[in-house]
């Protein structure tokens, strides 16, 4: 096992980790704001990426505008889902499990819709910073991956600032921590939940767009991303978007080191076993502290 191989594994792990982190961050933002586990978070990524691809190739929009369009599409779908389904179910005091099933149903529907209306093709977007790569000790990392890491860190910090510094962010936090208390101080809890879904959709779509230069996106990608996003979010403690970022990178590294350390075919087995073990032994996630409640 050479140094460059290990380095390459670390590069790949971090790059994948950022992908998982984006999905995980959206998941945990939605969970934090609404106590809903969103099984269609990966689908947000696919929607964002597909919209951007279509705007870029079919409508001929410039790349930045197409990205903005894709992000907007994710946010709109997020808002729609909250207004059309979640709000009604919350009014009826639906159980946590039924929200999980709702989003599973929506994920199946969206994936089938993309196949039916857009087609089975895999799509790619042009990388930011060109197709170039950075060579370190014979190990390669793409410029786009570096951009992805930079944007990922930026997005995490922005999200944190949004939650702690802005009125809307603070209201969302308050509504999620103590809905009744927040309502008495005049916060519209329902609207905050809508914002939460918009935020989740936005993060998901942005993540999807950013990874599309690395991973070709098609109708089957959503479930895969959701699974890994779940794992990232749970590793990080689920109620902490920053934790999801750390969880995602940990997961990515565990996977790629498992490939060089154990065997390539046991990657998923190792990753999901680590997930189960961490859930049982460290119920608050690897960042600890932040209280994590089960059911």
């Amino acid at each position, binding site marked *: 096992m050479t140094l460059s191989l290990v380095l390459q594994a670390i590069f790949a792990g971090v790059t994948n980790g950022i992908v998982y982190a984006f999905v995980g961050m959206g998941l945990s933002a939605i969970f934090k704001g609404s106590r809903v*586990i969103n099984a269609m978070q990966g689908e947000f990524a696919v929607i964002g990426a597909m919209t951007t691809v279509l705007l870029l190739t079919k409508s001929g929009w410039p790349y930045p505008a197409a990205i903005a369009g894709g992000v907007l599409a994710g946010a709109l779908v997020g808002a729609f889902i909250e207004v059309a389904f979640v709000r009604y179910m919350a009014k009826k005091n639906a159980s946590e499990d039924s929200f999980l099933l709702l989003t599973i149903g929506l994920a199946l529907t969206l994936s089938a819709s993309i196949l039916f209306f857009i087609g089975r093709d895999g799509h790619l977007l042009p990388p930011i910073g060109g197709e170039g790569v950075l060579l370190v000790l014979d190990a390669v990392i793409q410029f786009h991956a570096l951009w992805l890491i930079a944007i990922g860190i930026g997005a995490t910090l922005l999200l944190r600032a949004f939650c702690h510094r802005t009125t809307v962010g603070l209201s969302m936090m308050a509504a999620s921590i103590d809905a009744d208390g927040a309502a008495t101080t005049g916060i519209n809890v329902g609207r905050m939940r809508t914002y939460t879904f918009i935020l989740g959709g936005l993060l998901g779509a942005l993540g999807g767009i950013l990874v599309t230069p690395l991973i070709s996106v098609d109708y089957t990608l959503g479930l895969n991303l959701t699974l890994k996003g779940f794992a990232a979010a749970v590793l990080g403690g689920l109620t902490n978007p920053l934790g999801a970022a750390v969880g995602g990178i940990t997961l990515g590294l565990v996977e790629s080191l498992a490939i060089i350390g154990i065997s390539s075919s046991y990657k998923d087995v190792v990753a999901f076993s680590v997930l*189960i073990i961490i859930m049982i032994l460290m119920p608050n996630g690897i960042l600890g502290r932040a209280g994590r409640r089960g059911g």
Partner: protein
Amino acid sequence: MQSRLLWIAVALVIWAALPFFVPRNIADLLVFTGIYTIAGLGIGLLLGHCGIVNLAQATFYGLGAYASAYCTVMMGLPSIVGFVAGAAISMALAYVIGRPILRLTGYFLALGTLALSAIASALFFEWDWLTGGTLGIGGIPKLNLFGFVLDRPSRYYFFVWIVAFACMAAAHNLVDSRSGLMLRAMRDSSTAAAALSVDLQSLRTRVFVVCALFGSLAGSLFAHHASFVSTQSFGVDRSISFLLIPVIGGATSIPGIVVGALFVTFLPEFLSKLGDIHQILFGLALVAVVVLLPDGLMGAFGRLRTRLAARQGNHAR
């Protein structure tokens, strides 16, 4: 009471006559309905009586199916060995894994079982010396009951449904028993149940084991029906569709499980007549059930009946 007996008799006659009057593909779907009912019963017990979302049923279903396939095809043993081996392995695994994993609650438990299903599905691919990998294992013999070969859906139908009825009876017994009493207590208030010496962990684990047993039985039945097993039938998506059975039908009602199984086997069949759009429609139907009928079709049916009865009562007055 007498009218109830009459209803049961009518239902039995219809049940017995059904495979002779429906086309073979419908009989085939009815066989699958029976198999899915068995698998769904276990999940229904967990979901309805323990509040546990089990997204790992495809694992036990797969274990049962592979055990049957391996024992009959690779080792040439009688079918019954496969059934027993599958059940034993599934129950042992459920016990060993259940103890730690069932310490989780709510969403985390759901995610834990999902992870379990993902691991199992990867291992089914990986251990191809045992499972045949993607190519699977073919040529699993049809069941032979004292010389009577169950080689077509209309014959196998009876066997599968008799097993299904036995499982339903067992599930009914369980709910009605001392364990059932404790389960229902646990669901209502786990703190109070603990104070009354109800051992939550062990009870949850044992129901998980029963669920695995049902899953494994269903898997063995599936293997002898399809004559072929491969990794494609035991992935995470199958775990999800198993979970839909009690959710759609109603987790606490045993007839609800049958309704749920009918829904997941027949609805795609009917929708597929509408062309490639059928998967979208199935997804939407699922969303509609979850949003509009939170306690499943059976729950909605029950409410409708109470309302009708109330209205009739009003008329009578």
